[in-house]
């Protein structure tokens, strides 16, 4: 049992696991940053760090060149595992600036965990820099896992704080949110089928209040006890799939898509790219490599 647990732990501290995780982080992070830069026109409602410093020069024509160059160089250093303290710090700071500036335009992508996981990696590398015996191979991932767990727990606390224990009893009123989200899809695309689909789902939410209550209770408990996922590696993967199922369920029922909050969760809890690569290698060695060998 102990040996199996150690194997599991070793797998998650190997270089291929880390490389796949980094690739996934960059693959998620870069498009979000590019979308946010393109949508930000000014800083009319400053929030966060934008309250303290004006980043408007970075969004001028020349400033944007610097911003894109900084994104590119930081990502290259990060992927090549060069000067990691600086690379992760740079990614973290850029992420904070771009997301805060975007929020200062009145948009909310709920992308706090996206910056925070980069900050967690910087933290792990910074500790390792000052204290070389620190297990950076483990904690550059594990700190990120803890950030994601904390984010879900915070979401549950927000629900309990705003509505109390009766949050899951509001299944009927949930139907309004369903209609709102499907109307967004209609307003974006012009396809009235979204409205019809939303009306159907909203009606079934009203008709099956008890089932909705059970599902909402399950979702709330899953979020509230998310810290259980950081204690054990196997539990983390199981938790990852349970949360993914929750997000897919929300997507299907509410039409709001698998949001930004879930993407770093999938990467840090499951790391699917690593397992896809493993599977690819197995298939290659079993079928293709045998054919190539004379």
């Amino acid at each position, binding site marked *: 049992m102990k040996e199996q647990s150690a194997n599991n732990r070793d797998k998650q501290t190997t270089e291929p696991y880390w490389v796949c995780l980094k690739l996934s982080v960059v693959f998620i992070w870069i498009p979000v940053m590019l979308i946010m830069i393109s949508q930000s026109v000014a800083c009319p409602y400053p929030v966060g760090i934008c309250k303290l410093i004006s980043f408007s020069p970075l969004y001028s024509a020349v400033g944007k060149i610097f911003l894109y160059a900084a994104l590119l160089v930081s990502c290259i250093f990060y992927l090549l595992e060069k000067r990691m303290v600086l690379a992760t710090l740079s990614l973290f700071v850029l992420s904070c600036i771009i997301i805060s500036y975007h929020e200062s335009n009145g948009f909310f992508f709920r992308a706090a965990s996206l910056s925070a996981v980069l900050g967690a990696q910087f933290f792990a590398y910074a500790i390792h820099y000052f204290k070389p015996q620190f297990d950076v191979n483990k904690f550059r991932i594990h700190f990120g896992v*803890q950030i994601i767990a904390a984010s879900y727990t915070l979401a549950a606390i927000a629900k309990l704080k705003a509505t109390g224990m009766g949050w899951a009893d509001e299944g009927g009123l949930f139907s309004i949110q369903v209609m709102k989200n499907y109307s967004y899809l209609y307003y*974006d695309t012009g396809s009235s089928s979204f409205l019809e689909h939303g009306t159907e789902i909203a009606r079934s939410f009203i008709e099956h209040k008890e089932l909705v209550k059970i599902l909402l209770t399950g979702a709330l408990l899953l979020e509230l006890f998310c810290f259980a996922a950081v204690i054990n590696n196997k539990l983390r993967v199981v938790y990852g799939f349970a949360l993914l199922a929750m997000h897919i369920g929300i997507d299907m029922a509410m039409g*709001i898509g698998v949001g930004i909050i879930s993407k770093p969760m999938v990467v840090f809890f499951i790391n699917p790219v690593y397992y896809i690569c493993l599977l690819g290698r197995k298939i290659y060695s079993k079928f293709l490599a045998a054919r190539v060998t004379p």
Partner: protein
Amino acid sequence: MFKSILRNTSFGLGYLLLCLFLGEMHPFSLLPMYDSFPNWAYAFYVSDKQDNLLPNNKHFTIPAMDLAHNYYTICEDQKINTGYERETKEELNKAGEIMLEKLLAKRANTLTADTIQLHRICYSLEGDSVIAHNTIMYERAIGK
């Protein structure tokens, strides 16, 4: 055992406490998504003068969900109380003007309407039915 759990959770717990203490200050957040279900929800769309929908994906770069977020930010900035359709006509007009200005700043070339309207739909639950109430927030002529 306890030490191991503490070592494996202390970083996350620290982040959680900082979020609770600092609130909405990126990269800290309270993540208040769907934390309450009031009996109202707003959605916003743009149409021509005949109320023909002008889809955001085709004509603008800002999706409908972001437009709604934008509305709440503007109302917070303008000290307008939102919800249950309590906003006055003047308040809606003011918020609508700012929203349309932002929307038109990054419009596509496909927009050919002479006049466009910004609508607010308020969804609410009456009995066992979801009711939608449509209000024109702001209307303006646009140059081609």
